[in-house]
């Protein structure tokens, strides 16, 4: 399999000098995300404006070879536009796009070793399933028997065997989406752009396809640039991800980094849920900074988790709901713990745990997820409680500039 791919690369080199994919040191197992990894995609100050409105705004991004990289963000934040520029369907207004070390900013899409799974599928209605999938292979003059074999194999992967002669408009949305995926995957490109490739699949199929995608990726070392609305999908599948907002990067890193240490208020609320409390930076004692909340309490934040450039002393202190322990009001709190008092307003049993809404004296609510592990204390509505969590699970972000906040519709 891998050898076939290697041979094919060399063949490209011979048949089409334009293709920029020749990379003889292309290891069969792309070791994703490690420090020495090769950069496959590089966006440098890429901006795209439509009628003077920026859809993508000064984007800088490096994606390593063999990496599974996701783009997350609300509808209209520029994810599709970013993919279209990398695929070659849109020219950046300014900036540079590099693929495998080569500037492709203005290169035609048919000269790029990139395949796309389009958000709208874009299957050819005049061709049957087999011809749709074989389209890319045929353009590369892959021989007939090999085309048959690979189309058959990829149809197995997407769980649609015996669909070869079906017309694409006789397929359900989910089936069409899987054919679109197969049509791109079968070419085993250097870079695969996927624009919400599983939005039309049910949970079971989606899970199955996620596993397949990951296994194909590790087998042939394709770099995946993946757009999704599904945070869980992004977090479980990705080596790294970015959260975009209004054409800009709001947060970048491994799913754990971005989740545990969100860089902005937007990321903190877009990716998972966060409790955010406004306060003022009071003093720094080495590795720990103390913040006075507007409601009178005091919290500690690791100094390393403070936003880099603070323009004012006002910050928002955050903690994820599942990091908080809920204990009786008279309990004592250990060292290196933050604590807040409140009264349980709503308690909801969710099966895997309990979700509490705890009201502070200031009137603000804090959300707490407690796992259902049979603890004796299960506070009920109206109970006075103490909330505590380790200082290291506390983060601080700059407050969102007013005027920009909350205008996107989260989807």
């Amino acid at each position, binding site marked *: 399999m891998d050898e076939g791919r290697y041979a094919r690369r060399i063949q490209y080199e011979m048949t089409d000098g334009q293709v920029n994919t020749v990379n003889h040191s292309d290891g069969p197992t792309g070791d994703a995300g490690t420090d020495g990894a090769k950069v496959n995609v590089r966006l440098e100050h890429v901006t795209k404006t439509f009628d003077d409105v920026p859809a993508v705004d000064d984007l800088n991004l490096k994606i390593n070879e063999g990496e599974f990289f996701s783009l997350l963000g609300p509808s209209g934040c520029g994810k599709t536009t970013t993919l279209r520029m990398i695929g*070659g369907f849109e020219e950046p207004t300014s900036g540079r796009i590099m693929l495998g070390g080569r500037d492709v900013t203005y290169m*035609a899409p*048919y000269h790029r070793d990139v395949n796309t799974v389009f958000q709208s599928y874009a*299957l*050819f209605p*005049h061709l049957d399933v087999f011809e749709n999938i074989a*389209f890319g292979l045929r353009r*590369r003059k892959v021989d007939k028997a090999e085309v048959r074999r690979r189309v058959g194999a990829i149809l197995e992967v997407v769980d649609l065997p015996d669909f070869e002669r079906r017309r694409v408009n006789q397929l359900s949305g989910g089936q069409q989406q899987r054919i679109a995926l197969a049509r791109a995957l079968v*070419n085993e490109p250097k870079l695969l752009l996927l624009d919400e490739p599983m939005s039309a699949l049910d949970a079971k199929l989606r899970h199955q396809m996620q596993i397949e995608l990951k296994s194909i990726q590790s087998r042939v070392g394709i770099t995946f640039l993946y757009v999704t609305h599904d945070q869980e999908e992004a977090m479980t599948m990705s080596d790294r991800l970015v959260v975009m907002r209004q054409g800009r990067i709001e947060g970048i890193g491994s799913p754990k980094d971005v989740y545990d240490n969100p860089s902005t208020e937007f990321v903190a609320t877009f990716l998972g849920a966060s409790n955010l409390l406004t306060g003022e930076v009071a003093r720094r004692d080495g590795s720990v900074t103390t913040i006075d909340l507007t409601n009178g309490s005091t919290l500690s934040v690791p100094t390393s988790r403070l936003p880099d450039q603070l323009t004012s002393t006002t910050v928002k202190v955050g903690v994820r709901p599942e990091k908080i322990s809920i204990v009786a009001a008279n309990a004592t709190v250990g060292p290196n713990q933050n604590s807040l008092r409140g009264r349980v307003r709503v308690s909801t049993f969710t099966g895997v745990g309990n979700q509490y809404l705890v009201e502070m004296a200031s009137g603000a609510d804090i959300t707490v997820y407690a796992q259902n592990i049979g603890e004796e204390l299960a506070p009920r509505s109206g109970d006075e409680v103490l909330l505590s969590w380790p200082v290291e699970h506390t983060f601080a972000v700059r407050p969102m500039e007013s005027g920009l906040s909350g205008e996107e519709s989260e989807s």
Partner: protein
Amino acid sequence: MSLTPFARVDESTGSERASRRPRRLGRFVLPTYSWLVIAYLVFPIAVMIVYSFNRVISGLQLVSFAWNGFTFQWYEQWRSIPGLTSAFWLSIRLALVSTVIATALGTLLAIALVRYRGSKFRGKGGIEQILFLNIAAPEIVMGASLLGIFVTFNIARGFLTLVLAHVMFSIAYVTVTVRARLAGFDVSLEEASYDLGASPLGTFRLVTLPLIMPGVLAGALMAFALSIDDFVTSNFVSGSSVPFPVWVYGASRVGTPPQVFVFGTVIFSVGIVFALLSLGLSKKRA
């Protein structure tokens, strides 16, 4: 009183009930009306077909509209009038050549009009106006002015001028037909084709053209039909090469030979076959 949804609809929406009566009436009026229109449209064609089988008993072999009995004589002797036969073949050649040229040019123009706008296609509005004018302008005016042009530039009238004229008046029809087909065209299909490594030319051949083919064929059919029976323009620019309609017009002043009906019937039948084929094709593709 029952409270089923059906009962409630009947009671509450008066318009529902009001629409009942015309529908019952329509069961009678609409078919009658339709058949009358069809008869009106088909009658001249039927006359032509029927009288192509009519025996001629007078000495001169000319059409007479008394029914003298059935015969295949005119089909057997379809080539017996030399001027008519060569006019017919000239018309066929003319229609084929002008259809091919007009369809190619018209299709490309339609694609350009749909794809490009603004700074990428200056003068697009002007071209659209001209297309409209071309269809709307009286043919007699265009014929006369074409003749003027050819005479002024001293271009000998014949097959070449006929082709030029026919292409000129067919392009607009092809463009309008193909453009209608292109209106619903999903551009991302072409992007997908590029994405999979097809060049622009390959994409046109493998994706764009097959998808707009029904429109292209319909346009070609239109161009062919316009060309094969064009009299007005052809009469101005034909010079010494006389196409079928011009020949028939000339002959009819003396008397129409029955073979004219034979050719008419054949052209009509072939036209019907193509129309049905294109209908079937566009249904299949839709």
